[in-house]
């Protein structure tokens, strides 16, 4: 009988919050686009736009609340995420970034260096995504409370909300391409967040070699099936 070792990479709470946040973000992007692109709003008609606008506010609350729930229920997990984000870069991290563009366009012939729990490129992308999400959330709240703002502050909030929207759109595109495994070397990784959160030893060694070594050595999160 073949025995496969898995590493539990993401907890159930993290996966649930990520799932809820993903749904909220996608709905917010779609409903925001209707307002952001006037031609789109005009083509779908007033009633639809009105419904979309209401949904935008409902899911904006979900978008802001979901990570806060995670922060309150699992503060240690939050600290872990922040620590990973600001982890110092070693030679392999730098090498990974240098090779990343080549990897994206010639994955068949490129072998990437070993990585820690969060790849260096993902740390940058996650940082940018978190920054954009915070910016879009804060400016969104300001726009919602528009009657208390001066016209100038309202205009600045509107501009920053739009800038953050474009950033989120681009970063989400890349995040989905990689995270959902549309990019061939990442195929199957979608189950890390939308499945049981486990990664096989082989996959872990390929994607996060240093992390896999540490996890397999400690055995704390290792599952044998």
């Amino acid at each position: 009988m073949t025995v496969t070792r898995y590493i539990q990479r993401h907890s159930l709470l993290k996966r649930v919050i990520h799932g809820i946040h993903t749904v909220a973000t996608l709905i917010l992007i779609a409903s925001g686009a209707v307002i952001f692109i006037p031609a789109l709003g005009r083509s779908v008609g007033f009633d639809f736009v009105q419904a979309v606008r209401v949904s935008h506010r409902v899911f904006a609350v979900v978008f802001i609340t979901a990570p806060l729930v995670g922060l309150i229920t699992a503060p240690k997990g939050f600290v872990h995420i922040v620590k990973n984000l600001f982890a110092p870069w070693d030679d392999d991290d730098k090498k990974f970034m240098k090779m990343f563009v080549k990897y994206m366009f010639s994955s068949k012939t490129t072998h990437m260096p070993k990585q820690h729990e969060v790849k260096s490129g993902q740390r940058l992308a996650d940082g940018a995504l978190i920054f954009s999400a915070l910016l879009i959330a804060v400016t969104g709240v300001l726009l919602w409370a528009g009657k208390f703002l001066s016209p100038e502050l309202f205009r600045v909030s509107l501009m920053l909300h739009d800038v953050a929207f474009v950033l989120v759109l681009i970063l989400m595109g890349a995040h989905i391409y990689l995270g959902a495994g549309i990019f061939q070397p990442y195929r199957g990784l979608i189950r890390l967040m939308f499945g049981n959160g486990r990664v096989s030893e082989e996959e872990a060694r390929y994607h996060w070699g240093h992390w896999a070594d540490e996890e397999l050595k400690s055995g704390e999160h290792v599952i044998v099936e």
Partner: protein
Amino acid sequence: MTESAILYDSSKCSACKGCQIQCKQWNMLPSPLAKNEYEFTGSYQSMADLNGDTRILMEFREKDTDNGIEWAFSRRACFHCSEPACMEVCPVGAISQLENGTVKLDSTKCIGCKYCTAACPFDVPKYRENFGVSNKCTMCDDRVAQGREPACVKTCPAHAMTFGPRDEMLSIAKARVAELKAEGFDKAELYGETEMGGMHSLFVAKYGLEAHGLIRDPKKSDIISLIQLAKPLAGIGVAAVVGGLGLSFLTGIGYKRDALPDDAPTSDVAKEEE
């Protein structure tokens, strides 16, 4: 169709506020019923600014002179620009320009996004909280369609407001400015002939634009222009990312992990070894 315009002559205005009342009556816009609900403005002006239920406001600017107090009255309402920034940004087409130049806000189509309130260089459209829509002067397009004057014009007892073909209104206004200058009001000016592409609410400013609180050479807000510019740039950016990811996907077709063993050297290491 001929372009129309309202001409307001501040030198004839007595600031009786009849226009404010008539606008509210015709357009069924309520006023607060409680005593002193509006904060005292320090003058005879009814309220500090336009609001969701007030489309026109008579402004009082006072100045102490040797002859006592002098007032520079202003009619604050939508100027019905030829190049309306509010219409450009409206995501649902609730703001349109009629053939006679009126910039109409259809509240039944408005979704209350407040983009128009941000775009207008004069801060004219206001959000109507209890209805969740924006509100501004429509130049009584319903009355005008029936061959009548806007309600504010109709009611003006001092004939400080007139309504008619824009060309005619411009001629009258220019003649009036010349008259005022001849009477010694050197700073008298006409506002609205060329501003924002030419406006359909003209203003004879007896004491000059600044004295009446009018913005000299108004422009679309830089921020709104930036937002408008950002949209095509965003489109290009998104298209570039989608194109790049698409190319990445195409080059990855046929990828097999087995072709690269776990212990294969990283690409640049391989080069060093060569």
